[in-house]
């Protein structure tokens, strides 16, 4: 029973692994389909640019592997860039992305103003809350006022019925989306203190339950 952290040279996979280790969850950073298919769940992290990430995924065939994992119902959690490129298109470099979830990733407007009327900082970097708390079992046990650590200049626009949380930075944007077994968050749970660790544990527990039902552990 372990989680696979997808390694495609995109930065924060080691941070995610450290958080799993701290929680006592077996995890492995891997780029191998032989590790990904038997895993109870996949964490799809990422820091950097959409175009470069897609180039790496396509070059290694991991784009097709990811699509197949989702088709067979393998639980998946996208983080930050992973959250963005699960959608169909990103305005970052006008990049066609994985298309696993309907929606687009858009750039924050340079005209964005904060609550004081000052130009809003871009990237949106720092701690921010999910308005009214997030919904779905990923947020189970997390206080509605809990905050998460964000670093991003683009925001996701998935189909409205998939939105699980919204956050305000000059404008409201979607900060978490998905459905049971396929989730994505714009923030970094591995760097979001106790609330973030709880979210990773919630994901793991879902994977453990569904894996036990299917007998794949």
């Amino acid at each position, binding site marked *: 029973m372990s989680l696979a952290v997808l390694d495609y040279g995109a*930065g924060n996979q080691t941070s995610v692994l450290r958080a799993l280790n701290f929680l006592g969850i077996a995890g492995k950073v891997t780029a191998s389909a032989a590790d990904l298919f038997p895993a109870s769940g996949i964490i799809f992290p990422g820091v950097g640019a959409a175009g470069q990430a897609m180039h790496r995924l396509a070059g290694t065939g991991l784009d097709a592997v990811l699509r197949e994992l989702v088709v067979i119902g393998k639980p998946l959690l996208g983080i930050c860039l992973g959250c963005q490129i699960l959608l169909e298109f990103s305005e970052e470099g006008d990049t066609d992305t994985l298309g696993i979830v309907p929606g687009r990733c858009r750039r924050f407007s340079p005209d964005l103003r*904060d609550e004081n009327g000052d130009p809003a900082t*871009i990237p949106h970097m720092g701690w*921010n809350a999910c308005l009214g708390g997030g919904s779905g079992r990923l947020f189970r046990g997390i206080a509605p006022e809990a905050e998460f650590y964000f670093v991003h200049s683009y925001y996701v626009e998935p189909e409205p019925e998939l939105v699980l949380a919204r956050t305000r*930075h000059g404008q409201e944007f979607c900060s978490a989306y998905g459905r049971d077994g396929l989730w994505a968050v714009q923030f970094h749970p591995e760097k*979001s203190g106790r609330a973030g660790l709880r979210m990773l544990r919630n994901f793991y527990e879902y994977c453990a339950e569904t894996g036990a039902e299917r007998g794949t552990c």
Partner: protein
Amino acid sequence: MLSKRIIPCLDVRNGKLTKGIKFQGNVDIGDPVAVARRYYEEGADEIVFYDITASAEERGIFLDVVERVAENIFIPFSVGGGLSSVADMRAVLLAGAEKISVNSAAVRNPGLISEGAEAFGSQAIVVGMDVKQVPKRREVPSGYEIVIQGGRRFMGIDAVEWAARCEALGAGELCVNSIDADGTREGYELTLTRAVVEAVRIPVIASGGAGSPRHMLEALTQGKASAALIASIVHYGEHSIGELKSYLDAHGCKVRPPA
């Protein structure tokens, strides 16, 4: 809405904290990992580590500290002190830091900022600026000049212009340290802080001079900083991070609720 961040700063030499840190309770006050863990649990939003000596052999010990920190705290942290090449930056990031802070090396070689931003992304590059107030002159129209070597060497560079240049080169964040205010405990340099904030779009951390919760409030409201760097105000046990956050919250400054 973004919360204002509270960032304790720890100076590390040879794997130990250099300044005495006084805590109630059983924390080994010489161990940076234990102290970082303590601040993390109290609700620090980020932590900064400065490697004070950065000789080659002590660098290895310091990287070991960075790794142990990364295994024990789950908030972002940055590392500065003696980083002067992309290879230095890479070593610290691989050890688990989110951000690297460059200061005098960037003044001497501004290309370091763009090289770092290209290699690791702007979000990973913080430029620390040491600044002294001087009479206004042609090269320093704001009256704030960039200094290095702890303020002993004046560089003939205007601090506000340098801030904008750092942003253009790809810095993701600026830490503005007033050498005049540093260590006085009489408050941050608010005019300088605000001038830099208004010259750039990236977040600015105010540094130098915090002696009371009120000073932090001023830096985050009048100074318009995104974050306040603190040291002695928490290291000597006068205030906990939680108390500081309660104070800021009670005065209308949005902070992340203590975890």
